[in-house]
């Protein structure tokens, strides 16, 4: 335990970092699967004079599309030394160009040159702080790619399809005796290989022991194959929801009884499911998962709603439609009441008339911090 309170390090003490070799990252982009949208409630009565069928922005299921802030940034030539550019294949990131200094006005030989007297018409340049926000300087291909799928899959049918695929692949590796490969890193294959995995027949006996029949060797080779980097790596992770549903209806459901008591098998299946769906099963739930069916149930359990208003809308939508109840996504304050009555805009107008308040009445949360830092 520390005896004195923690102070932040002075910024002047920061040093340029040393270089470490980059850990082997999985560079395969994942197939994006959108989570199933939550049902919008159209019949809600909200505590506002706004249109009742319009869901407030904080409750809308999808995030508003934020346009990418693409700015043309030119760097100030402050404190930069001459940089010899690297060969193009090594330049995924583009650093600022070497600084160049314009010749002084009195040394210009061009007779037509007239020194500017105002800044009007000059190009606006950014600063070095926002240099890497420009997509031309930091291409998307250089973004960090982790192990788990970028988009978390929450569609129950897709989750079941992912478990089926992960389980079959794991059983194949186990059956072929490649135990050491169970904890390794498996690549994502193309659709043909995915279909080959699903074409395998999984038979489960009464003890939950599964046997896979079919072309096991081809599947195993596809899993541990390392890309040579020359071609674009396959991106196929999961079928579409409709395809997964069709597959589910066709397939025999007995595979779900496969026992996952073997810790090694369970670890491999969970790891593959994490890679395919982005779903991480917490350690605490591991002991309760005894079969594939249990794993599917754990994954399919919807996450706890983050706010009470979302919980009411998803779990008890009948409360929102009650005729004698007004539903508000946030706590109703004096401001909301003024807005509902139409008084708020009058207050703002009066302020404006007296030149007391320009803009909305609310003060940003960070204003006080800005004062402390001496920024505003």
């Amino acid at each position, binding site marked *: *335990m*520390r005896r*004195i*309170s*923690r102070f*932040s*390090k002075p910024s002047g003490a*920061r*040093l*340029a*970092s*040393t*270089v*470490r*070799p*980059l*850990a082997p*990252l*999985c560079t395969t982009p994942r197939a994006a699967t959108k989570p199933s949208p939550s049902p919008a409630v159209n019949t809600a009565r909200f505590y506002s004079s706004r249109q009742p069928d319009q869901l407030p922005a904080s409750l809308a299921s999808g995030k508003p599309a934020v346009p990418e802030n693409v700015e043309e940034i030119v760097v100030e030539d*402050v404190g*930069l*030394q001459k*940089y*010899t550019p*690297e060969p193009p294949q*090594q*330049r*995924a*990131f583009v*650093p*600022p160009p070497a600084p160049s200094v314009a010749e002084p006005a009195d040394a210009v030989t061009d007779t037509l040159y007239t020194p500017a007297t105002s800044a009007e018409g000059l190009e606006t340049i950014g*600063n*070095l*702080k*926002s*240099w*890497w*926000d420009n997509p031309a300087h*930091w291409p998307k291909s*250089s973004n*960090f*790619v*982790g*192990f*788990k799928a*970028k988009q*978390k899959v929450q569609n129950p049918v897709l989750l079941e399809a992912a478990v089926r695929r992960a389980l079959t692949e794991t059983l194949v590796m186990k059956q072929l005796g490649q135990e050491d490969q169970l*904890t390794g*890193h498996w690549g994502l294959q193309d659709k043909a290989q995915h279909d080959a995995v699903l074409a395998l027949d999984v038979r489960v006996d009464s003890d939950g022991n599964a046997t896979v029949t079919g072309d096991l060797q081809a599947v195993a080779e596809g899993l541990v194959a390392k890309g040579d980097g020359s071609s674009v790596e396959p991106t196929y992770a999961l079928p579409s929801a409709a395809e997964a549903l069709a597959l589910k209806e066709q397939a025999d459901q007995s595979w779900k009884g496969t026992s996952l008591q073997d*810790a*090694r098998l369970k*670890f491999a299946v*969970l*790891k593959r499911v994490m890679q395919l769906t982005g779903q991480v099963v*917490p*350690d*605490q*739930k*591991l*002991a309760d998962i005894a079969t594939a069916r249990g794993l599917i149930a754990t994954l399919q359990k919807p996450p706890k709603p983050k706010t009470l208003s979302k919980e009411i809308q998803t779990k008890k939508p009948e409360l929102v439609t009650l005729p004698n109840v007004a539903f508000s996504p946030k706590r109703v304050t004096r401001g909301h009441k003024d807005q509902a009555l139409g008084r708020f805009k009058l207050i703002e107008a009066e302020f404006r008339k007296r030149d007391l308040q320009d803009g909305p009445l609310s003060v940003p949360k960070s204003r006080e911090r800005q004062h402390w830092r001496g920024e505003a």
Partner: protein
Amino acid sequence: MATEATLPSATSNLTTTFMTTPWRPSPAVPVTVYDFQTYEPQRLEEWSSKHLHLPMRRDILHLAVIFEGDNTRQGTASSKTRYEVRGSHKKLRPQKKTGDARVGDKQSPLRRGGGKTFGPKPRDFGTGMNRKVYDLAWRTALSYRYRRGELVVCEDGMELSMPHEFGDMVKHGALRHQDLIDGFKAKWARQVLDGNEWGRAHGRSTFITTDRRKNLFSAMDLLPQYGLALDLEDVDVKDLLTTGRLVVERKALAEMIRSHQSDLCSKVFINGVRPSPPETGKIIVE
């Protein structure tokens, strides 16, 4: 009495089942160890339930946090009494016959610039707590995180790996301005944290390592809204409870538990042998 009815047999069976099979919690719980940056599961281990699966004790956690808060107070507030304020202690004016109120000296607490009555003086606000209770609080906090799925254990040597191009650019002097280096580091760290669902949108994270890691710590200094990084000697119970999750280096977790299990292993030697702590960190799958 003749009218007494016998209990149904099903109930008695149930009772005997409960009586004969007491609840025995598992002595160990599984812990997945991940690769730090990619979040790829590396192996499965078994840790003692007495370390990571203790029942929640809100009261003990409260005691520990208050104890830490007390001991963190500086206690340096100081004010001067009338006897410490500088100046002459001469009576300002005669007691009588001036028409004004009677006064004493200039340092009187009633006068401006006078001393402070009962003002603060430097003191130690520190309180005590039994070591075994404090250690229990420490492991209770870790157990609370484990149970909620907010304890991510990563492999030793947890450090933010930067892309190799970054090192090249620094080496060649292309990033001589600190803003460029900081901007790069912050953006990369933001991508890593968002990609692993550890960032701002997911409740911030506390990264705990055995010692200070240059890239990780400097990046987290730049991103206070994404979490914080602490080395072992800077961690206390309150830190374990604050952000959305703990991302802990395996060695750091083992050390935290080793140094906070005084209630589990006695210091007293019995028959020449000191009782050993519960076995923990056994590798199940690798």
